[in-house]
């Protein structure tokens, strides 16, 4: 199983090589993999069809509860079959559609990775592994949507899809972790089989919102639907795959998968119905009012995704039956229709439906399969789409709440979809011959194989619904519902309310279709006007906002002025220290200064005066000289207080420093007042504040000595063990020799730095 899931990635690694070797028939060659995967997954049908679930275990990162366990039940098997089955035809189709494209090899690499990620997504038992594959589908689809990467629009659309789905994905990650926190497990089958009622858990709402944010963005639910039509920037094989069996279905899959666990809270059903219904209507409306054939199809996908979400939300036994049927029906006809659309565009040279017409004469086979698939889309007997639509009506009519609204929405969208089906099937193939840039022929075999097989399957499933039902659909329904389901699919249910609704929507749809040429321009104008306020405009606002905030923040923070940087750092350092001192220790101001001799007062005064003079004088020389005085005063302090070595070193270093300053600084200009009085007072305030904090900290530290110093060891052992009489020296060269070693390297590094700065000058290097 692991190999089956990962085989796509493995094959992807060899795809460039194979593309070079196989030449024109590469599509057929690569399709062998998904085809055999289809057979492989189909071989599990006998084990699954009774409603059992198979768990295949592999370890990955047990420390983090991440495993490569795969869960195979009706639901995941249906998805796996769709992904590998439709994938087979997509690969064949792409070989033909993109024949001779210079980047065909790269296309196949990404496509195979995408397929494998999708398979991994629907088969994973582990929440995190599922998420891993989930994100991989986002990334690979980004690469696919932006396949024509030199086109700026393609790049933008790809980014849009990625940004929206990954944003949702991150929420999903939080949601999945919350789910695991609630249930105590990262394993889907454990979560699904646990009897715990999640609905009453304190984190339920948060988890629900996070998870749905992920699935709604992925499955293009309103108001996140806008990325999907834009994803049409991808080559048609990608669109066909993305829309029919993969990517957008991932969100639907996850909702269906989690339905048994999450549906015990009322919020779940309500949110799903609300968003699903809205998406259904929005999708159907935009599908009807667009002109590009791919746009029309894309919005009809949005509608279908809304329907699926709505059905999960309804949550009854009947709704689950409808869900599974609708899912399969949609995958079949949508895959077929997209491939047909690609064939039309490939053959005629345009995507605009208004320019096509009467093509059934020149492209008879294409027309046949296109119409078949469109009939399924429109929900007409005897195709599988009809069964799905009847079940949809039945389900919404019997919905436990909001039944009327849902029914109304379903009927309206069914009506619009009839119109859409007419647009894609009737408009191009019937009527007056259009004026197309290229002279069309029937599509080549590679491009017809997919639509042919998929539409014929849709027909067969419609005529003989018990075959798929017994094989996997029933098991899938049970997996979504979480309990055994007893149902029997059939084409004919007698004359009942759903059938009448179908009839109504069919007639209304035909009516709309005839009105379409007159309605469309008006609707289009309305859409264009409204798009300024739509969610897509919101997306652009967000992106713009990010850039604005980012550049504003960077201008303010990283403004290039060193003084500001230092000011902030000083303020933070001493503000934090001062605050902590007052809150954690308290204010202990000691004024015991009586223990100092008068000459010590003198030194202290000298230190203070020289420091203040050095920092306030306008004369460079004065400043450097008082620095020297300060240094000597420090040395004097050292010597007076029992540190002769320090004193001597300080004297030496101070002399060198003064010489260095004099030598170097006098090449620089005289001091002038660069800053404004405000800046000076501001800096002075901060500096004084820092000084006060330091005084308080030092005074506090002087009061506190928690432990005796370890120095007594050095004092006692220097002579007997280290054979030295100057204890400071002994410490430096023996006890703490490593410090001294480091110090030597610091000095040599400084010398090296100075040398290279003086010798290696940029202007010399730029000279010819």
């Amino acid at each position: 199983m692991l190999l089956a899931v990962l085989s796509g990635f493995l094959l992807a690694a060899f795809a460039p090589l194979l593309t070079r070797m196989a030449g024109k028939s590469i599509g057929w060659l690569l399709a062998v993999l998904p085809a055999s995967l289809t057979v492989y997954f189909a071989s599990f049908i006998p084990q699954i069809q009774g409603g059992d679930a198979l768990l295949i275990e592999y370890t990955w990162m047990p420390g983090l509860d991440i495993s490569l366990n795969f869960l195979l039940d009706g639901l995941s098997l249906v998805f796996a079959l769709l992904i590998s089955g439709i994938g087979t035809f997509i690969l064949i189709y792409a070989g033909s559609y993109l024949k001779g494209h210079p980047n065909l090899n790269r296309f196949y690499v990404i496509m195979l990775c995408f397929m494998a990620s999708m398979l991994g997504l629907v088969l994973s038992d582990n929440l995190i592994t599922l998420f891993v594959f989930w994100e991989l589908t986002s990334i690979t689809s980004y690469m696919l949507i932006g396949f024509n990467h030199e086109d700026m629009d393609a790049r933008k659309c790809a980014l849009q899809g990625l940004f929206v789905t990954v944003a949702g994905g991150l929420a999903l990650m939080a949601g999945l972790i919350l789910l695991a926190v609630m249930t105590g497990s990262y394993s889907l089958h454990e979560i699904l089989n646990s009897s715990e009622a999640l609905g009453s858990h304190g984190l339920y709402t948060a988890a629900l919102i996070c998870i749905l944010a992920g699935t709604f963005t992925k499955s293009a639910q309103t108001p996140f639907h806008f990325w999907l039509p834009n994803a049409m920037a991808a080559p048609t094989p990608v669109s066909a795959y993305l829309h029919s069996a993969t990517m957008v279905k991932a969100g639907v899959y996850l909702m269906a998968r989690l339905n048994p666990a999450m549906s015990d809270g009322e919020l779940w059903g309500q949110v799903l119905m609300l968003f699903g219904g809205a998406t259904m209507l929005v999708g159907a409306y935009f599908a009807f009012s667009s002109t590009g054939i791919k746009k029309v199809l894309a919005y009809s996908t949005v509608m279908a995704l809304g329907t699926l979400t709505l059905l999960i939300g309804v949550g009854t036994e009947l709704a689950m039956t409808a869900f599974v049927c609708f899912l399969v029906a949609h995958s079949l006809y949508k895959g077929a229709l997209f491939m047909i659309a690609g064939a039309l565009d490939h053959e005629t040279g345009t995507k605009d439906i208004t320019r096509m017409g009467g093509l059934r004469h020149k492209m008879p086979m294409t027309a046949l399969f296109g119409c078949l698939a469109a009939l399924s889309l429109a929900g007409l007997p005897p195709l599988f789409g009809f069964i799905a639509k009847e079940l949809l009506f039945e389900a919404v009519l019997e919905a436990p709440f909001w039944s009327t609204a849902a029914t109304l929405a379903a009927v309206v969208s069914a009506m619009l979809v009839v119109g859409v089906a007419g647009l894609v099937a009737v408009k191009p193939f019937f009527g007056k011959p259009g004026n197309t840039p290229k002279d069309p022929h029937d599509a080549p075999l590679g491009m017809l194989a997919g639509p042919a097989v998929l539409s014929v399957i849709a027909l067969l499933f419609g005529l003989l619904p018990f075959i798929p039902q017994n094989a996997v659909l029933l098991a899938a329904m049970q997996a979504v519902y979480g309990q055994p389901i007893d149902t029997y699919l059939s084409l004919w249910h007698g004359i009942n309310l759903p059938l009448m609704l179908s009839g109504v929507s069919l007639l209304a749809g035909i009516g709309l279709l005839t009105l379409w040429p007159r309605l469309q321009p008006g609707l289009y104008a309305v859409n264009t006007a409204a798009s300024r306020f739509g969610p897509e405009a919101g997306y652009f606002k967000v992106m713009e906002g990010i850039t604005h905030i980012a550049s504003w923040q960077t201008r303010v923070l990283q403004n290039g002025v060193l003084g500001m940087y230092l000011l902030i750092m000083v303020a933070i350092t001493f503000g934090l220290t001062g605050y902590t001192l007052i809150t954690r220790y308290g204010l202990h101001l000691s004024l015991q200064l009586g223990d100092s001799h008068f000459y010590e007062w003198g030194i202290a005064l000298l230190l203070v005066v020289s420091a203040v003079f050095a920092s306030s004088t306008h004369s460079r020389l004065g400043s450097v000289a008082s620095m020297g005085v300060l240094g000597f005063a420090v040395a004097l302090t050292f010597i007076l207080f029992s540190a002769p070595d320090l004193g001597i070193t300080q004297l030496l270093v101070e002399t060198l420093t003064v010489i260095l300053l004099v030598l170097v600084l006098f090449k620089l200009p005289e001091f002038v007042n660069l800053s404004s009085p405000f800046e000076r007072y501001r800096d002075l305030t901060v500096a004084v504040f820092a000084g006060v904090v330091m005084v308080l900290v030092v005074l506090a530290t002087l009061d506190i000595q928690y432990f005796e110093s370890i120095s007594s060891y050095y004092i006692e052992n220097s002579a007997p063990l280290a054979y030295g009489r100057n204890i400071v020296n002994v410490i430096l060269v023996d006890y703490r020799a490593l410090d001294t070693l480091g110090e030597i390297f610091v000095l040599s590094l400084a010398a090296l730095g100075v040398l290279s700065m003086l010798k290696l000058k940029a202007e010399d290097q730029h000279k010819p």
Partner: protein
Amino acid sequence: MESLMAYVIGILFAAAIYMMLRRSIVKMVIGLILLSNAANLLIFAVSGMKRGAPPLIPEGASAPLGPVADPLPQALILTAIVIAFGVLAFAVVLIRRAYEIVGTDDLDQMKDTDT
């Protein structure tokens, strides 16, 4: 004496920070020197200051005869002084070169790299 030094150190810190915040690159370097002096004095002060008892062991004795000043902070300060000198030497040459290349000693003029 330590308490007195606390106030001196505070003033040194204030002076150092004020100088570091100046726009003139030379003043900034003087600020850095002040700061390292302040830090050294601080170590010296907080670990206790003793008058006239250097940590030396007289000939013939195996340990100092009376209590002596703590030698460990002295060793630390000595290391710190030398390191500070190395750093300072580098910094001084750096500003000299920067002045030659950029042509100004005003730090506010040196913000091309950030934006």
